């Protein structure tokens, strides 16, 4: 347990260092972007000094780390405001679409796996679906539900200053856009175990006794695939939160993914680091949980 925790902390440290280095390697820094498109070079230099970007990268990284240990995530280069509250607000907004999407993906993924277990064509369709680019999927959903049926808003604007509870309908498209590929992925990864269990004597026997397929699924199949399902669900929890960027940007939903995208665009390192920290922590916890489940299953 201690070893696992140490590993997790080391991984986390590696991730935030890696993200910091990658951001430092990007062309242009926050000073250049803030100073504007055709800025006077002397102005850029002045701004760099102001933001502390004239120091070497390791000095900047160390002072960021030092702040982190005191619970201080730093201030945004763009608006000078503390990163913490903005992060919390965006994390909350993302949770509102990620958590339902996760539940939906797990339930739908298992159901689909049960249905397509014995159909090669069905599983090929699932595979194709899970490989669908998010841009195509979101456009398709908008076309079907917003433009076509006119039932849902085509972009997920929240009431200004309000929360998603005031307009729950805006959550539907982002949740679907996140859940569908995840469900397909889960269905693909548990299809093997399900097919395997369906071929076992006790299931065949139950079938011959005339037990209904639904009952077979619940009583005989699910308990035996609980391990792989839980493992897949844990991995999904991490990847869903870390993978909201495209969906949130296309649907104008103000979550963590969009914050990350805009922070990268403006090289706002303190914000990028904070989002990376949260994403990495969630993914790590998810992977640890998945590992734990796998070990428990093996015993």
């Amino acid at each position, binding site marked *: 347990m201690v070893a696992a925790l140490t590993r997790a902390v080391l991984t986390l440290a590696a991730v935030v260092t890696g993200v910091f280095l990658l951001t430092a390697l*990007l*062309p*242009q820094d926050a000073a*250049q*972007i*803030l*100073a*504007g*498109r*055709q*800025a*006077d*070079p*002397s*102005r*850029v230099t*002045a*701004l760099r000094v*102001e933001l502390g970007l004239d120091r070497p990268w390791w000095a900047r990284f160390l002072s960021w780390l030092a702040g982190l240990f005191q619970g201080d995530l730093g201030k*945004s280069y*763009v*608006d*000078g*405001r503390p990163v913490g509250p*903005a992060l919390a*607000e*965006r994390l909350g*907004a993302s949770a509102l679409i990620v958590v339902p999407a996760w539940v939906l993906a797990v339930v739908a993924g298992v159901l689909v796996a049960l249905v397509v277990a014995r159909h090669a064509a069905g599983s090929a369709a699932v595979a194709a679906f899970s490989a669908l680019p998010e841009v195509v999927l979101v456009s398709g959903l*908008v076309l079907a539900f*917003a*433009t076509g049926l006119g039932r849902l*808003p*085509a*972009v997920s*604007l*929240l009431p*200004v*200053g*309000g929360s998603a509870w005031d307009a729950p309908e805006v959550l539907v498209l982002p949740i679907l856009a996140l859940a569908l590929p995840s469900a397909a992925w889960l269905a693909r990864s548990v299809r093997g175990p399900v097919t395997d269990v369906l071929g076992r004597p006790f299931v065949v026997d139950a079938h011959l006794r005339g037990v209904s397929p639904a009952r077979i699924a619940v009583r005989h199949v699910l308990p035996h695939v609980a391990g792989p399902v839980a493992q897949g669900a844990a991995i999904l929890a991490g990847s869903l939160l870390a993978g909201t960027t495209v969906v949130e*940007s*296309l*649907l*104008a939903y*103000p979550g963590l993914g*969009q*914050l990350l*995208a*805009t*922070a990268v*665009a*403006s090289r*706002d390192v303190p*914000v990028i680091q904070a989002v990376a920290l949260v994403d990495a922590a969630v993914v790590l916890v998810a992977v640890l949980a998945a590992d734990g489940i796998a070990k428990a299953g093996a015993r």
Partner: protein
Amino acid sequence: MSREFSRRAALVLGGGFALAACGKSDGSSPGSPSSGGTLRYGTVAAGGATAVADPHGALFNESDWVRMAALYDVLCVPGENGEVLPRLATTWTSSPDATRWRFELRTDAAFTDGRPVRARDVLFSLRRIASKAAANGDRLGTVDIGRSTADGNVLELVTSLPDAELPRTLAGVTFVVPEGTETFDNPVGSGPFKPARADAQGIAVVRNDLWWGRRPYLDGLEIRGFADPQALSVAVVSNLIDVAANVNPATAKTAERTGRLAVTSRPDALTYPLLMRLDKAPFDRPEVRQAVKLAVDRQALVDSVLLGYGTPGNDAPGPSDPSYPRDLAVPARDVAKARSLAGGLNVVLNTTTAYPGMVSAATAVAGQLREAGIAAEVRQHPAETYWTRVYTVEPFCLGYTTDLPFPVWARQTALSTAGYNETGWKDPATDRDFATAMATTDPARRTELLRGIQRRMAAEGGWVVWGSAASLTVAAPSVRGLPSGSGFARIFLDGVWLQR
């Protein structure tokens, strides 16, 4: 604003009479502006959707500019055709050499917390803007803030150089906060609106009944920034917002095709000039520059790149400025002459994906040059590196300019003293005429001097300003009175109303 409105009203009224005369009036002629309603306004947040709170630092999101213009008052605002209209300042005069400016402020302006707006508050705000010059693109221009003073309702600004165009430089950007303000979580301004609610994506403001100006028609505004232009387009087409400002030509065309949305345009807002460096081969040879100017088909570029939302240009670099030489003819295409001047030449035209239209413009230009025997290859660069490593460096590039006042633009990039020089234009006559113009307080004479500079640049310079693009706004048909002036006039929404 009022003049703009009456012109608009006259047009509409005229249209109404014409329709009535035809006997098929649809009854939609809007009489006088009606009050009430909340305008849902959206625009692209290019640099990121993060809303900036400080009105004096870097404001690279259009949504931030619009918000500041709603919450805070400014000294003066741009009107039509480069004129400057009073706002907090009622009148201004300068010393004969245009180095000392006296702004008289109105005495009936008050902040939302009840305190009066004094010249000290304005000076404090200008000082903050000056201290953040690196981040805000040197917004105050020539103002020497250390020597400027405030007394009662009189503000005296001293400039480091003669600057007869100072009010135009300041128009629309001098957001005034109460003296001593350093935090902006609960904004206190003296603008036409006051804050109601805010979040990461947008802000809602309501009418400020204490404002000194004509009572805004709208009850309030909701201002949102969109990280993705496609999402902005979808939002206005599906009626989730009333206005999508600064959209690209393709979005405007799509909106027009729906038949349910109106496209309004502010002409000459943007240019994508070809920049030929005078200090680099082959463009150091005048006949090569001449050949490029003759080889481009300007109308074709306006049609294909701007989808018709623009005007062909005559290579004078400031089409939105009153000093633009309108009488200078647009050069007619002459492929044969271009070929005889520079046929057989190989050039690389550099461009970037930074703004919509820059790649398609380069591709179309390259095709036209090839028709004149100039082998042009398009090289595309990412936006991140373009402005630092390609622009002002490579001999042949696509540029991008907004409708800044011509003197501001010239000071930035076309004088010998400019921090960077986009075409390597270093011309003693330009420097001299510019200095004379900036020390000339008579507007007609000054404009004439600046016009002379623009003419010379068009004839001998390295700019091919093949056309100017309109800034396009898509709006629901009920939205009236959107700003039509140039430059920062676009961010002031207190004259907008919703037709009932």
